């Protein structure tokens, strides 16, 4: 795929307890699949989906935790340079909701403070097992100034909406930033990945 194939590129990072359905959300969105088992995703670093919004190609790079959330051992570098974070819990699992503040602390600590955070309650297809009410989650997200959405990766409810809304927000944010960018401040973007650093020689 050539580099100029898109107008925007965003890095979206998923976090939340193990088993809340992070990988399923990504798979559902990028591949249209719902994997029945809970096979760990070996060898896949992030997934990519290019979507078109108002005629503009937006490439979404969606990063999964690679299982490091299981023992609360996510590397800080995972959060660096993320444009958006999807903080996921399982509506049928009180514990996954109670852990949200801990995740928020990690975000505050390591992510850029311009990151957009979305709170996602997954597994609404299991409505009869619900343990976390919509109201509680809505109040929490409001207090933390986050967007909030409930999804079902299994039934594909709100999954498209989640990512497309996020893409829209990222675009408008990016536009604002380029307008306001007259302040020369250190931004992660100043650093370069090795492959983009130009080569030249002493001779």
């Amino acid at each position, binding site marked *: 795929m050539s580099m100029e194939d898109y107008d925007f590129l965003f890095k979206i990072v998923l976090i939340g307890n193990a088993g809340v359905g992070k990988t399923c959300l990504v798979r559902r969105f990028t591949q249209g*699949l719902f994997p*029945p088992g809970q096979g760990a995703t*070996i060898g896949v670093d992030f997934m990519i989906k290019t979507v078109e919004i108002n005629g503009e190609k937006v490439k979404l790079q969606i990063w999964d935790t690679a299982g490091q959330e299981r023992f609360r051992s996510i590397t*800080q570098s995972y959060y*660096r340079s993320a444009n958006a974070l999807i903080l996921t819990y399982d509506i049928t699992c009180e514990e996954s909701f*109670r852990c949200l*503040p801990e995740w928020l602390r990690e975000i505050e600590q390591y992510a850029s403070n311009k990151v957009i955070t979305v709170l996602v309650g997954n597994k609404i297809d299991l409505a009869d097992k619900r343990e976390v009410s919509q109201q509680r989650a809505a109040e929490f997200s409001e207090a933390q100034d986050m967007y909030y959405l409930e999804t079902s990766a299994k039934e594909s409810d709100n999954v498209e909406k989640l990512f497309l809304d996020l893409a829209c927000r990222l675009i408008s944010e990016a536009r604002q930033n380029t307008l306001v960018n007259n302040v020369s*401040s250190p931004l992660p973007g100043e650093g370069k990945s090795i492959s983009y650093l130009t080569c030249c020689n002493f*001779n």
Partner: protein
Amino acid sequence: MACVISGLPESIIAAACARSGQRVLHVDSRNYYGGNWASFSFSGLLSWIKENQQNTDLSDECEDWRKLILENEEAIPLSSKDKTIQHVEDFCFDDQDSAEGVEEAGALPKLPVFGAPAAKGVSVGSEESPAEEGVSPGSEESPAAEIPVPESADGTSPSTDSAESAPEPGTTEAAPSESAAQEPKKITYSQIVREGRRFNIDLVSKLLYSRGLLIDLLIKSNVSRYAEFKNATRVLAFREGKVEQVPCSRADVFNSRQLTMVEKRMLMKFLTFCLDYEQHPEEYQDYESSTFAQFLQTRKLTPSLQHFILHSIAMVSETESSTLEGLQATKKFLQCLGRYGNTPFLFPLYGQGEIPQCFCRLCAVFGGIYCLRHSVRCLVLDTASGRCKAIVDQFGQRISAKYFIVEDSYLSESTCTNVCYRQISRAVLITDQSVLNTDSEQQVSILTVPPLESGKAAVCVIELCSSTMTCMKDTYLVHLTCPSTKTAREDLEPVVQKLFNLNTEKETENEELEKPKVLWAVYFNMRDSSGVEKNSYAGLPSNVYVCSGPDPALGNDCAVKQAETIFREMFPTEEFCPPAPNPEDIIYDEDEVEPEESGLSNSAETKPESSAEESSSGADAAVTKEE
């Protein structure tokens, strides 16, 4: 395979093993990655300092795990207390009291407590006002809001909470600085505390040689995608009490205003010779037994050029390094030059501490399991085979594996009685301006300070600016490193005094005023276990591999070499860190491929030789894959 602690070599080995199909468990008793390779926010570093200053002898060591050792087994206890850091001394050159009660921005005190240890408790009320919240997240963009600029310097600046509670000395002092152009902005200790998470302070200070082994490995393995880098922008020299920029690239030499035309020609001629010195043995063979410094004296170079080449380009010892060593080092420098920029070095954004984490991420992507805050009590030795078969963790759990990687600092005293360690002296300073001010304040500089007295080592100084994401705006983070002869403070303070102004009072002599002011400093000694041979550890089974802590060299070659050597000993036929498939190249065939396997089958597609062979060799080499 089990890995204990997560320094750079261990992380590379873990990544390489997971990549070639081994099942890897990586545990570390600390709550952060990297061991002595880690980097910390300011508050994180303060806790680290406290921890290492308290000499708590935890002799109340619970030895319950001994019960778990069977008859035909033996235990090799591991040390639970890290003894690699000594002589930690920190100094604040600003009114520390003014920072009392100041909290790091974004410490999340306003969270509802869900049984979790949410708030640190201290601050309630005023600090959580929406106004405060509004200011701190934006501070990266508009630091002016946080710094007492003339407009708001009436002492009631609403953006600083210390100003709310008590008059802050820093604020009032900064007020007269109206001609802000030249004058560095006055940063106070409380601002450092508040902006603490802008800091990523490395325990080891290194740079990446742009043609060094680490860069090659990062590129080869695709781990480079997890990190971003900046070029070091300047190479500096310290000569006759002054800091000067060293022209090292062709362009630099020609553009240099400090060199005369004759000097330019001399320097270019010499550097060109160094690039392929092997082709001209007649030029140096008479001097092979003399030092590089002596050789330089014969080359018709002015004293300043000799100084630049010896200390800043070759970075070798004046008294000890031979001509060949010097030529080799100069050639390495020149070869690295220009690959990515005007100096031979790269620095990772957010600090060197990111690098081990990047390899851990690769390991995790390939199925490695990560457990921080998880300590290991002992290795379990099978008496009959003489091999290590398991570890016992803090909960008395026994975890079996075929191979074990342990960092030197985890080995107990009884294992290390015959080991002789060297030490590294380190200092970290937060300063208010660069050691060499130029038109751009965003500079990453490396400076070698030659030994101030004979018998001492040269001190390597790396100065980082805020765009490396390692310090807050309007400050510089300065790292000093040298092999120890005494305590870190004794080794390094003389150099700090030469380069910086350590006075806390406002009125100092003019000369001192020109120097950058140190706002905060810490000194410590770190154990250097890099030169230790494996056979000097007593009683270690052959399937236990020891990684050393950080070495004092500027580059990272030592860690990479060590990782590759250990990996090859374990798996002689496997490739070391082949490229991970690029996610963009993975084509998901939605209908035909079982969703479960899409990841695997596709990585097999991009690397056809891998999966089948590897997983079979992996199966008998290590604990087999679950699922």
